[in-house]
């Protein structure tokens, strides 16, 4: 028997390091050649790591969430025959490819759930606290008796703001030990309250490591909100005419043409409006103090995946007709959901659309896809009564909730831009002339 060390391969694209987001194996597992060991994530793409050999997993070189340099040891297998401890799987090109669409296991892999361990002050208790300790262990203290505890336990209690008179001691003579204090803390202070029949208070705390895509989302959202003073502008759009047109087009489409959603129309409308308002289609490099206005209208669209939201980009919307836009939207949405979208497809946007319309909602306050300067949020189309000057008529109304970087876009300009988009959508023929 020998050992075989697998190193983190070069996952391409000049990437120097990658974050481990999944382990498919654990120590003791037998893996076959080509079976998937785990996955790492680079900027956008997730790459699966297959095993080049058959063997038993004896060592894992990282925890989920760890960032590894390319070439660092990832996993060690016990293999038949002589081991090749230094072999890295970049020796076997072709084994690597962007991850296939893969069903994720039931439990989300990035969520490493475990019961919350209490912050252990020093000195650490000698053993882990059994959380499920009975509420009254040890001789009950007589009224007026001072709680019995060592100075170290008393100090911990004081610092945690716990009145030791409330804590049952499991030690001899009712002495309160570190483990009693742990149990008390774990139980929470509300445990003493009355519990309604059949309803049990839960003091369970599940720790979920924020890793992988979720971490990237968290960082990006925080950055966007820290840096960008958002201005949100909501306007309603009468899409009755647009919906009629969409229905007609979908009815008469050729078999090779995609079914059109509202998105391709909005994209084309944006292209038109941006022609008059180029400042909306830009990247604000705030550290450098430069705004890059783009000729290309690369429209990002937020897509929900199982692991969180990603933004897939319809590149060069200005050069695509409505059918082309529709086809690209559908293709990218599928790829994003399946996890097969490439890095290019998941980057490069200059303005973003986010739609929660399918779920409902009247207004959203979308977060700008930093470092862009504008985001257009689509709300649900609803039939509403609209006063036409003589009577109420039923109209299909849709709200646009849009966010702008107020550092570089004034409220006035934002409003004028959205009014332009509104006019285009309400009279859809204008989109096409």
């Amino acid at each position, binding site marked *: 028997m020998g050992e075989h060390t697998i190193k983190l391969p070069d996952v391409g694209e000049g990437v120097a390091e990658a974050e481990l987001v999944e382990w498919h194996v654990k120590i003791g597992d037998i893996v076959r050649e080509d079976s998937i060991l785990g996955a790492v994530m680079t900027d956008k793409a997730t790459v699966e790591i297959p095993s080049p050999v058959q063997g038993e997993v004896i060592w894992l070189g990282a925890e989920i969430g760890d960032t590894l340099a390319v070439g660092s040891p990832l996993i060690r297998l016990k293999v038949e025959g002589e081991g090749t401890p230094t072999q890295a799987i970049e020796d076997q090109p072709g084994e690597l490819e962007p991850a296939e669409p893969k069903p994720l296991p039931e439990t989300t892999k990035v969520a490493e759930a475990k019961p919350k361990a209490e912050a252990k002050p020093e000195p650490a208790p000698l053993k882990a606290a059994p959380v499920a300790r009975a509420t009254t262990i040890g001789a009950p203290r007589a009224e007026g008796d001072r709680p019995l505890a060592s100075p170290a336990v008393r100090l911990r209690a004081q*610092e945690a703001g716990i009145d030791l008179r409330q804590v049952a001691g499991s*030690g001899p003579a009712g002495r309160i030990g570190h483990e009693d204090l742990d149990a008390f803390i774990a139980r929470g202070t509300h445990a003493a309250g009355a519990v309604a029949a059949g309803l049990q208070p839960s003091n369970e705390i599940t720790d979920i490591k924020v890793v992988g895509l979720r971490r990237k989302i968290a960082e990006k959202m925080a950055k966007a909100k820290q840096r960008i003073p958002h201005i949100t502008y909501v306007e309603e759009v009468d899409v009755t005419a647009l919906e009629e047109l969409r229905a007609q087009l979908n009815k008469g489409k050729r078999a090779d043409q995609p079914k059109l959603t509202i998105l391709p129309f909005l994209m084309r409308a944006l292209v038109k409006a941006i022609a008059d308002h180029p400042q909306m289609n830009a990247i604000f490099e705030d550290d450098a103090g430069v705004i890059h206005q783009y000729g290309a209208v690369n429209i990002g669209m937020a897509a929900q995946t199982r692991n969180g939201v990603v933004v897939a980009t319809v590149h060069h919307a200005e050069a695509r007709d409505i059918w082309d836009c529709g086809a690209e939207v559908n293709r990218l949405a599928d790829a994003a959901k399946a996890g097969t979208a490439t890095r290019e497809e998941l980057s490069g946007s200059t303005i973003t659309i986010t739609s929660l319309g399918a779920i409902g909602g009247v207004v959203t306050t979308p977060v700008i896809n930093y470092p862009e300067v504008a985001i257009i949020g689509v709300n649900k189309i609803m039939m509403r009564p609209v006063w036409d000057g003589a009577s109420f008529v039923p109209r299909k109304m849709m709200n646009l909730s849009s966010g702008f970087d107020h550092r570089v876009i004034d409220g006035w300009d934002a409003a004028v831009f959205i009014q332009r988009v509104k006019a285009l959508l309400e009279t859809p023929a204008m989109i096409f002339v």
Partner: protein
Amino acid sequence: MKKDMICKLLIIGTGPGGYIAAIRAGQLGIDTVIVEAKKAGGTCLNVGCIPSKALIHAAEEYEKVLHYAEGKSPLGIGLAAPTLDLGRTIAWKDDIVRRLNNGVAGLLKKAKVPVVHGWARFKDGKTVEVETETGPQIVRAETVIIATGSAPIELPFLPFGGNVISSTEALALKTLPATMAVVGGGYIGLELGIAFAKLGTKVTVVEAESRVLPLYDAELTRPVMKRLADLGVAVLTGAKAKGVSAKGDALLISTADGADEKIAAEKILVTVGRKPVTEGWGLEEIDLDMAGRFIKIDDQCRTSMRGIYAIGDVTGEPMLAHRAMAQGEMVAEIVAGHKRSWDKRCIPAICFTDPEIVSAGLSPDEARKVSPEIKIGQFPFSANGRAMTKLAEDGWVRVVARADNHLVLGIQAVGVGVSELSTSFGLAIEMGARLEDIAGTIHAHPTQGEGFQEAALKALGHALHI
């Protein structure tokens, strides 16, 4: 006028409470200033614990050698009659005090806490004026700790001066008085009385109560009474001091049966207790609530005025340095924002008489008040090998515990050198030890400390050496 000093924390007094608070505050990064009118270290270091222990040790050594010279020692040691140069003894003591003064000053310096020398006086709750040698200095602070300590109580009919002295003067006598009357048979009077008796003074103790050391139970003080008799110290209990004779060479008393008597006394040492120093520093300006003679504090040493803390003797009994130190440490941590409150289970007290007395926690009588049934285990040093080899068979260790769960409530001891046992007594009580814990701890042999383990075993009903 000097430029005002502004600080986060001002401490008044560099006694054990004040200087510990200052050091801890310095460690915690609190901008702290401390004021001292005299020398660093307070009563304890300058005119209390430390110098008295020096004198007591010198007296012990002298008495021991004298004993050898008299040919009475069973150890077979004989030598010529010793001489005593009390001036040199006091100079040696002063040197220890000086070294410790410097030590405290050095510790304060290391903690980066400046000392303002002079008498402090509150102008308001946040402002103190210090009369320094070079003029008044205003110190403004967010928080103030009063650690002004205590002073010997003076009797109106025996005002200090001349031959009437307090413990402070007793520790600085250059020549040995032939006779001394000690008014007040508390621990200070007896510690010093025994020391002078050993040095050769004819000592008479006058105590108004029915027995000396009234704070300790009679059983504990019995070995001390025996020793006092051996040393030729006359103890008059139930007797009241009335004044000094016209010539100033005797103490006038009224004995237990009402007769007037005259006790020849070259020096009259008045040790009737100590009073908190609550005057002269502007207490009236800040009008704090009092608890009797003392400043009233809560379990965080907070006074009735926000931002003003008080620690040590000025806050009440027991007036012991180690209580003040623990309070000082706690208050510094509270000022630093830590959550702390006074939660000590015991403050051990030691009486450095011959033999010494230690008491930690509750006496049997006190224990009976909190626990319906108690167990007591007492082990005599006469059954302890180490005590025998030290000619220290007098005395014993006593453990008091609850009968139901064997929780140790109090530990007392009397005997030569038992002061050092106070640490394990205190530890046992703070840790919430039961009799079994002490009995189950290996105590090294041969030591007097074995008596502690044996006393616990005795309370459990199976002492091994008795």
